């Protein structure tokens, strides 16, 4: 049966971008918290842990 | 072994007596279920769907939410009476404590269901007759599943913040397999289908009950002991 390859590049872009955003944003939150953890010396009260 | 069982019954009896005295949990759960049924009635378009098509879902959603309400209050009885700590200090086998709680909760939820079912038949004009024993059976089967898991979680959340919110958040995913099974079996019972069509679902329900009651007995000590 004859068929045309559908033109759905937009969906591909959307999916790839959404995935990248989720991973990068999550990585960002980790980096922020990691910097806080690396900076703070042995003080009490880990406010940074409460993301 | 029989000792543990007797202990469990004693614990259950105590809980039931306590609740019968104040009755608030029971009454609120019953009223809630009735309201849910009323809302369902107004929320549907009677010309679009026959009552019988929606019936199993309506019934089971009502049962499910009624159960969550009933379970939410179950451990409060204990906590408000500060009785739990006393029991824990005694050398009571944790399995007896869990089974006792389970039986008491089954009684509570059972009462809520016993009231909701006739209301359901009344409001939705569903003729049950021949299907009734089957429906009672599947209700018992699925309810054990809900309540087994609900008992553990309500024991946990009673000590947390936002307890009323935490219980449904934790419990609802676990209620899905018994719920799905119950709706499917109920639908077939109401349609008078042969037993063979429900076998898979009934096996699912039974397996769920066996597995989760056992699991809950095993993990309950981790919930109540330090």
């Amino acid at each position, binding site marked *: 049966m004859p068929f045309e390859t559908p033109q759905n590049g937009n969906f*591909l872009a959307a999916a790839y971008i959404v995935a990248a955003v989720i991973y990068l944003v999550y*990585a960002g939150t980790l980096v922020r918290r990691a910097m806080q953890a690396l900076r703070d010396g042995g003080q009490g009260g880990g406010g940074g842990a409460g993301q | 072994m029989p000792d543990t069982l007797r202990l469990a019954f004693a614990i259950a009896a105590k809980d039931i007596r306590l609740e019968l005295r104040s009755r608030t949990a029971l009454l609120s759960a019953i009223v809630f279920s009735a309201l849910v049924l009323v809302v369902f009635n107004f929320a549907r378009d009677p010309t679009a769907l026959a009552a019988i098509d929606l019936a199993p879902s309506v019934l089971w959603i009502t049962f499910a939410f009624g159960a969550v309400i009933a379970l939410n209050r179950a451990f409060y009885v204990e906590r408000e009476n500060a009785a739990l700590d006393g029991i824990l200090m005694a050398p009571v086998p944790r399995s007896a404590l869990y089974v006792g709680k389970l039986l008491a909760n089954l009684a509570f939820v059972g009462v809520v269901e016993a009231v909701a079912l006739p209301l359901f038949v009344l409001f939705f004009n569903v003729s049950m007759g021949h299907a009734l024993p089957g429906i009672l059976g599947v209700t018992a089967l699925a309810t054990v599943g809900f309540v087994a898991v609900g008992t553990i979680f309500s024991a946990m959340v009673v000590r947390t913040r936002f307890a009323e919110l935490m219980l449904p958040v934790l419990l609802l995913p676990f209620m899905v397999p018994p719920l799905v099974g119950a709706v499917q079996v109920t639908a077939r019972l109401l349609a008078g289908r042969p037993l063979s069509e429900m076998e898979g679902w009934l096996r*699912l329900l039974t397996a769920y009950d066996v597995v989760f009651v056992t699991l809950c007995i095993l993990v309950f000590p981790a919930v109540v002991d330090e």
Partner: protein
Amino acid sequence: MTPDLSAARRTIRGGLALMTLGLLAAAGVYILALYYTPIEARQGLAQKIFYVHAPAAWGALVAFSVVGLASILYLWLHDERLDLFAASSAEVGVAFSMVMLTTGPIWGKTVWGTWWTWDARLTLTLFLFFLFVAYLALRAAVPDRGERARFSAVVGIMGLVLVPFIHLSVYLFRTLHPQPVLLKPSAPSMPPEMLRTLLSGMGAFTLLYLGFVMVRYGIACAANVRGGSSNAV
């Protein structure tokens, strides 16, 4: 600086390195997927979503299994580190399931014409997502460290046991309700470029998972050392 804190910091630093590596590898997979793999004739470009979607699903599953396993081990060994590790894996699991649950429907729209279908994998991942969220919500609601660890472990184990039942429910349900046929390249007939990209994707995202978890675990350990029992980690 206490030895525990320095160990935690080493973990964080190692984790950050691993995570960066994972992100670079993931970027590499993106490039492979976009330029190296052929376009599937029937589905078009959108089929390439598969190379990001499948590893995400895999990552969510791995994350979940780790939570379950660590929970069992915690109840057995009572080592707090197991609890912190489980919590870290749960958080990372949320990210991976979110990716799976967003790329899935986007792809699904092109293949099935509908955004959502109760297909086995999507449904299961949805449940994993809800369980992860419930697990993390519970942790946030329990102030006492020991209690939090115990309760989380119980939920982790129960969640693990729930999964086969969800599977069974979906299977029984689907044999009644035929699902739209999922057009996806099945393993035997997958051209080598596709297979290679898929495997690279699995590798890259597993690396990313490990990096994420390591950083998160390190942060949790550091907070654990510093704070009292009130740290919700």
